């Protein structure tokens, strides 16, 4: 455990050094301040932030984490000849990168939201964005250990982001459309749960309660995700999206040649 934390600390120091985290924080903060000051209506500001959280946050998290993993190849190689378990090396990096990106998110978006919109909706927004950050870092870990080639690894990361934010939703819509003669509520519910971004989107939009913006995928499950039970399930699924890719990455990393 101690070694994991040490590795996390070195990763974090390295990240602070390259300043991308700082720009990311400033960018998020700038956007938050602009949307909250543009209109007196706080809900509108929150709604604008939802789009940032659903698109930009996953993109930055996955690409940044993947690039960082490839840039740490030397550091990882150095650690591997030492009596340090591979699991710890990977977890150390996960914790380090997550800490950097979470801090950026919590300062950049969390702080303004708490100042301008300190409501249950605001809290949900922060929680959802934070969990998305963690799950996309986790997915990035998997992407980065799956191939040795940096360009291919970043390509995979961007493709995954594209899949989760756009392609997947289109796919679900297509299923709804193609099989609209059948009772689809349950299967589509499950399908949605398989995508962290969709899940976060539904939870957020239900909270904000602007049904006009919900679109097809959202409208179906107001009854379901609005309940406490729905919230618990959503949170658990998002947690799975943080844990499972990371565990797969560890498994892959353990049997990898350096």
């Amino acid at each position, binding site marked *: 455990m101690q070694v994991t934390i*040490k590795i996390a600390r070195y990763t974090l120091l390295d990240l602070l050094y390259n300043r991308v985290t700082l720009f990311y924080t400033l960018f998020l903060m700038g956007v938050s301040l602009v949307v909250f000051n543009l209109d007196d209506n706080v809900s509108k500001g929150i709604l604008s932030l939802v789009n940032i959280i659903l698109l930009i946050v996953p993109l930055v998290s996955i690409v940044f984490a993947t690039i960082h993993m490839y840039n740490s190849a030397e*550091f990882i190689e*150095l650690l*591997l000849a030492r009596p*340090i378990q591979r699991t710890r090396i990977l977890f150390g990096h996960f914790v380090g990168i997550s800490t950097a990106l979470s801090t950026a998110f919590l300062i950049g978006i969390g702080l303004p939201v708490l100042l301008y919109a300190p409501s249950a909706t605001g809290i949900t927004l922060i929680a959802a964005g934070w969990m998305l950050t963690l799950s996309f870092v986790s997915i990035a870990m998997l992407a980065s250990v799956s191939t040795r080639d940096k360009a291919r690894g970043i390509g995979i990361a961007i493709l995954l982001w594209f899949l989760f934010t756009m392609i997947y939703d289109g796919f679900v819509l297509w299923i709804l459309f193609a099989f609209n003669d059948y009772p689809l509520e349950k299967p589509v519910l499950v399908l949605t749960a398989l995508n962290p971004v969709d899940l976060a989107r539904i939870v957020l939009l239900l909270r904000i309660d602007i049904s006009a913006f919900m679109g097809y995928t959202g409208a179906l499950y107001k009854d379901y995700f609005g309940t406490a039970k729905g919230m618990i399930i959503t949170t658990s699924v998002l947690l799975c999206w943080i844990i499972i890719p990371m565990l797969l990455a560890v498994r892959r990393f*353990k049997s990898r040649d*350096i």
Partner: protein
Amino acid sequence: MIRIRDLKKSFGKLQVLRGISLEMHAGQVVALIGPNASGKTTLLKCILGMVVPDSGVIEFGGKPVNKEVSYRKHIGYMPQIGRYPENMRVRQVVNMMTDLYPNGADMDTELAEAFYLQEMDQKFMRTLSGGSRQKVSAVLAFLFDVPVLILDEPTAGLDPVSAEVLRQKILREREKGKLIIISSHVLSELEGIATDILYIADGQVKTYQPIAELLKETGTNHTREAIIEIMNRHAGNH
């Protein structure tokens, strides 16, 4: 100290190690030689757990190494190409490795001092020349007083003075009865250091015997000539 049984490893279709079995003991200085791409570095990386073998057993101090990593605290490793975090200073890298070492074994700063490492202490790794990097690698390998040293092409890229410093250091460690494995193409640098020759070709052990025996067998006085003799002998069998 190290026992390897029927070690096999392929990278895709390429069979790099085809069943290597051998034993190494404290006090030996094993010169690992062989043509390019014969599997030398792969063998060393298998011992270090950096490459996961397809089959076979590696035992360190009587225990198989595939699950437990703690055996690595007894090994100092100098890679063929030292790759380091580019944004760190030399001092930071050395401190980090010290910090990450469990239960801090006895430090050995002799080589760091001999290489005047303090002079490049504050330089960034990315600004270092190949030779300077090699010095950092050597310092890290010898940083702790450990019973086993694995040196992969240790003097490649070092200037003659530094190479001699390293050679003297290896000799002193040999006196302490350590097991030292040196992979090298520079045959003259093995002269007077190595006690055994391990010749690998096509992923198999071709020759593994004490130098004294080998000199007698080949009728020469120099390690260098004896090695060339073995290489020629096996070149005929290809």
